C-alpha cells in the first residue's frame, strides 16, 4: 500500500497509528516524528474547542511543496504530513509530521523545518472557543522568527 505523503482531513487522526505505519513502511536508520495537540488554555482563558478553517486545495499544494523541499534539503528517505481541519476539542491531535533519513540530524532538522514553515505558510486559521466567545488566533512574531531561521540557506520554499 502506498500512502499519500500529504493528508488534509476533517476526520480525527491517530498519531500512534500513523507513527507505527510510518516505521513499518520506512524502516530507515533515523525517524523523527512530531505531533501537535489543541492547547486547552490561551493567554486569558480556558479553550474548550478549536475551529480550524482551511483552504483545502491550497493546503495540499503548500504541504506537498514543504515536504518535497525538506526531502531535497535534508536528503530524506521519506516524509509524511497529516493536518486536521474543522472543529476539534481541547487536547485532540491537530498535526502529525514524520521524517526518515540515514542520520538523526537530518531527520530532526527536517521535522522541525516542516513544522516551522507549516505554521506560517500553510492556509489554516485557528479560532478558539472558550464557551462564551470565539476568538481568531493572531499570527505570532515568534513563529515568524522561527520560520525565518531557515531562510538563509533556503533552497525551496
Amino acid at each position, binding site marked *: 500500500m502506498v500512502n499519500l505523503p500529504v493528508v488534509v482531513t476533517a476526520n480525527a487522526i491517530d498519531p500512534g497509528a500513523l507513527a507505527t505505519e510510518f516505521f513499518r513502511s520506512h524502516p530507515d536508520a533515523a525517524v523523527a516524528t512530531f505531533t501537535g495537540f489543541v492547547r486547552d488554555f490561551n493567554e486569558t482563558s480556558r479553550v474548550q474547542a478549536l475551529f480550524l478553517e*482551511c483552504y483545502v486545495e491550497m493546503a495540499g499544494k503548500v504541504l506537498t511543496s514543504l515536504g518535497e523541499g525538506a526531502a531535497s534539503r535534508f536528503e530524506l528517505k521519506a516524509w509524511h504530513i497529516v*493536518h486536521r481541519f474543522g472543529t476539534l476539542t481541547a487536547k485532540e491531535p*491537530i498535526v502529525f509530521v514524520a521524517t526518515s533519513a540515514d542520520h538523526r540530524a537530518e531527520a530532526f532538522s527536517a521535522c522541525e523545518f516542516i513544522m516551522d514553515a*507549516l505554521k*506560517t505558510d500553510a492556509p489554516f486559521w485557528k479560532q478558539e472557543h472558550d464557551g462564551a466567545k470565539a476568538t481568531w488566533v493572531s499570527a*505570532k512574531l515568534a513563529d515568524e522568527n522561527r520560520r525565518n531561521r531557515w531562510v538563509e540557506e533556503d533552497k525551496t520554499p
Partner: protein
Amino acid sequence: MKKEVVGRVNGTMTVTVKFFSLIREAVGEEQTTITLSDELRTVAQLKTHLGQRGEQWREALSHPNLIQAVNQRVVFEDQLLKNTDEVAFFPPMTGG
C-alpha cells in the same frame, strides 16, 4: 504573447474569489464569481473593484496584513489575472 481564450466573452474575464477567516466574516461571503473588463488586470485592481461593494469590503480588503493568493500561490498585489483564475484573500496563517 498569446492571450488566454478559454471561456472569454467580448473582452471580459471571469475569476472566482474566495475569502477565509476574518476576511470571510467581514465581507459576509465565502466565495464570489466576478466578471471583469479587460482594463482590470491586477489583484490590486480587483481589490479596488470589490471595494465598491461597500465600506465593509473596502475595510476588509485594505487590512494591513492581508495576504492574496492566485491559483493557490501567494502573490504580490501587482500579479496579473487571467480568465478562470482562482483568487483568495485571507489574514496571516495560524495552523500547526
